[in-house]
């Protein structure tokens, strides 16, 4: 478990990037840190492998502070994947993956076996990719190598700094799915920084929402979706995401029958059971209704509220 205790960071120019952050990352969980740009999410991440030194506070891994550990040892025991991929262009794929093993002086045979194993794990054929150079690979393939490189030393902790944000949507989806299944399989503690709420909801076990260097809310994806604690969280996940989320779906109101409730509060609007998501979105988001009463054959069959609809969509997505 990684524990961040009262962590503060002020940069030389006086900006306070982090203000008394208290948060922990559970063992074996994939935690997303999310927030708008400049909220300190990357700064927080880089404290964990000490790429940035804290102004105040402490970071503990498995109960002992990392601040007086040997920095090189610490970093070799933590996998790291960065946004711009960060593969070394002058090294082959195999060499890139084996940087840490070579620093640790593994035997040649062990390194070769491990490299092949890693390439297979991220679905790249070893025979094809081993001796290629990073610039010969597509962005998605490069970032797979980046993930393989982070996993090669079998670290317990992996830090990922917006690793998929520069990829095209299709590769991004693929890599998210792969990361999720890898995580299920390997049970590493992963801290994943992103600015994409969809990504966070899709892959995270827990989400930490940051804003201006402070924690706004921590919780499981569905908890955050259902009970956004502050207006900021609401606006950060709520309207924009909800709109996008809803409009992507081609379901009708009737489809969510299982989620209907029998009573409602706030502003209600009557709609037909075959009302599409487009119209529902407009009602909830643009016109500010809290729930709709669904009518089928001139009979009310229940109420669909904004929150349950969101929850329904989120549940469906994560399945």
């Amino acid at each position, binding site marked *: 478990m990684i524990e961040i205790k009262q962590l503060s960071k002020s940069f030389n120019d006086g900006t306070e990037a982090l203000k008394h952050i208290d948060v922990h990352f559970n063992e074996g969980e994939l935690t997303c840190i999310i927030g708008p740009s400049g909220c300190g999410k990357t700064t927080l991440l880089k404290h964990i492998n000490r790429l940035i030194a804290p102004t105040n506070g402490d970071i503990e891994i498995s109960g002992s502070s990392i601040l007086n550990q040997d920095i090189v040892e610490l*970093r070799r025991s933590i996998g790291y994947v960065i946004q711009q991929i960060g593969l070394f262009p002058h090294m082959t794929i195999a060499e890139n993956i084996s940087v840490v093993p070579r620093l640790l002086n593994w035997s040649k045979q062990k390194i070769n076996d491990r490299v092949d194993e890693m390439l297979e794990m991220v679905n790249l054929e070893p025979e094809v990719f081993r001796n290629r150079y990073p610039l010969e690979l597509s962005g998605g393939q490069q970032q797979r190598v980046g993930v393989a490189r982070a996993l090669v030393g079998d670290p317990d902790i992996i830090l990922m700094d917006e690793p998929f944000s520069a990829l095209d949507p299709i590769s991004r989806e693929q890599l998210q799915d792969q990361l999720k299944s890898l995580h299920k399989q390997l049970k590493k503690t992963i801290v994943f920084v992103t600015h994409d709420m969809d990504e966070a909801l899709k892959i995270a076990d827990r989400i930490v929402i940051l804003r201006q260097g402070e924690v706004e809310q921590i919780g499981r994806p569905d908890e955050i979706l259902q009970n956004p604690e502050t207006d900021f969280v609401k606006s950060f996940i709520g309207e924009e995401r909800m709109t996008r989320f809803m409009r992507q779906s081609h379901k009708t109101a009737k489809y969510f029958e299982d989620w209907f409730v029998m009573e409602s509060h706030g502003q209600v609007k009557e709609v037909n059971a075959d009302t599409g998501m487009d119209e529902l979105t407009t009602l909830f988001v643009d016109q500010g209704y809290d729930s709709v009463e669904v009518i089928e054959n001139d009979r009310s069959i229940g109420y669909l509220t904004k929150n349950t609809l969101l929850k329904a969509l989120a549940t469906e997505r994560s399945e």
Partner: protein
Amino acid sequence: MPSFVNGFYKWGQEFIATVIDRRELIQTAFIEHLWLSFIAIFIACLISLPLGIWIARAKRMAEPMIGVTAVMQTIPSLALFGFLVPLIGIGTNTALIALTIYALLPIVRNTYTGISRVNPAMIEAASAMGMTSKQRLLRVEFPLALPFIMAGIRTATVLTVGVATLATFVGAGGLGDVIYRGLQAYNQHLILAGAIPVAILAIMFDFVLKYFEKKTTPKGIQIK
């Protein structure tokens, strides 16, 4: 046959006669010139590479150090040779010192630029993987900066081969000897018999270094 072709033909014959006549002088001068240039470049590399790497790390030293080497570069070469004579006397050492000073700037500047221009993401990745600062330099920064550094060395080499013609004024020999004799004797053929080998030598050096550059540039960077 038109007269100018005739004249040119005659001129060529005379030139070749001069070269054959003075071949021992030219040969010795050529070898002296080659050694002077080579050793000066070698010493300049020994000084400039660590210096360039150092100022790339200690950024606030960069401007002053590059400034100093740039100022040395602006001293007219002839004046620099003259200036060193009362201090060190005449001879090969004086010439080597002057030539080395001239070769510093391009190498220092390109080493500095090359190392500074390495993508910060590479540095971050290297550090985050637990490379020590030395490992990072040798395994990441230096290989990535190598094309820049080689370009600096090539510039310095061409420069040095040219300036080395002035070594004759401090009694260090070289092809400047041949040119100087030609100048004193108003002998065009002899001047050219000194100047053309200088050009050939510069091209030769450049060619060898180009080959070396290709060899040392990591394959992965050549793919673009």
